[in-house]
């Protein structure tokens, strides 16, 4: 992937993520349910590994860190990524550096090492299983 494509995609995703968070935040404040975009959830009725991230992020903004952890621990990661990456890219573009691109390539290379990838995916799978058990237990 070229640097230009990556910056365009990441900037778009980051800004879209921020808009999505603001939109969901306002919706959840009025006690309405945020719009469900998860295809997996709509088809099977079960939560997918990243379902609950937006609730978790909103909880973090409110300062309910424990509740955020209960809703989805990936919310912390998602919140950091969405918060940092657009500004990192803008700073890179303004200063003519390519630190984000190098970071991306490093992550890409790191995740190509089998045991790193397997442990990362196992962790997400484990979190998902815990969530599924809770979900099936509650309903």
């Amino acid at each position, binding site marked *: 992937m070229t640097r230009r494509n990556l910056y365009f995609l990441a900037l778009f995703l980051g800004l879209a*993520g921020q808009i999505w968070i603001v939109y969901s935040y306002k919706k959840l404040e009025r006690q309405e349910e945020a719009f469900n975009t998860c295809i997996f959830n709509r088809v099977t009725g079960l939560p997918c590994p990243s379902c609950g991230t937006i609730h978790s992020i909103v909880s973090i903004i409110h300062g309910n860190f424990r509740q955020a952890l209960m809703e989805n621990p990936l919310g912390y990661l998602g919140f950091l990524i969405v918060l940092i990456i657009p500004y990192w890219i803008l700073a890179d573009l303004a200063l003519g550096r390519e630190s984000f691109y190098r970071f991306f390539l490093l992550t890409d290379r790191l995740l190509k090492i089998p045991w790193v990838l397997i442990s990362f995916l196992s962790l997400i799978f484990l979190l998902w299983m815990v969530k599924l058990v809770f979900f099936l237990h509650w309903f």
Partner: protein
Amino acid sequence: MDAQKADMFIMTHAKFFEPHLIQAIREKLLQTDESKWMTIQSLTYREPVLMLIISILGGHFGIDRFIIGDMGLGVAKLLTCGGLGIWTIVDWFLIMERTKEVNFEKLRMVLG
């Protein structure tokens, strides 16, 4: 490498690469040393149609991106519910082209 072998490779592997690159691959193969033939033959390529099926079934979790080796994008797709479902659909149309690109990069690494 002699023309017969290059043509045989093109005939059996054309579906793995983008059509506009076929001619360039053939020329590159003709210039390549005979000793690389076994390595080139033993490379495994991703099947674009299979990747499309995987993208339809598991694209929501970024499995298609993980398999073709775009790890960073795979993680991004996994963590965002398949880009709120939009990226999943966009990838149904992009994944075959990307698979062919990855196959070409793999071959180019061997051909030098």
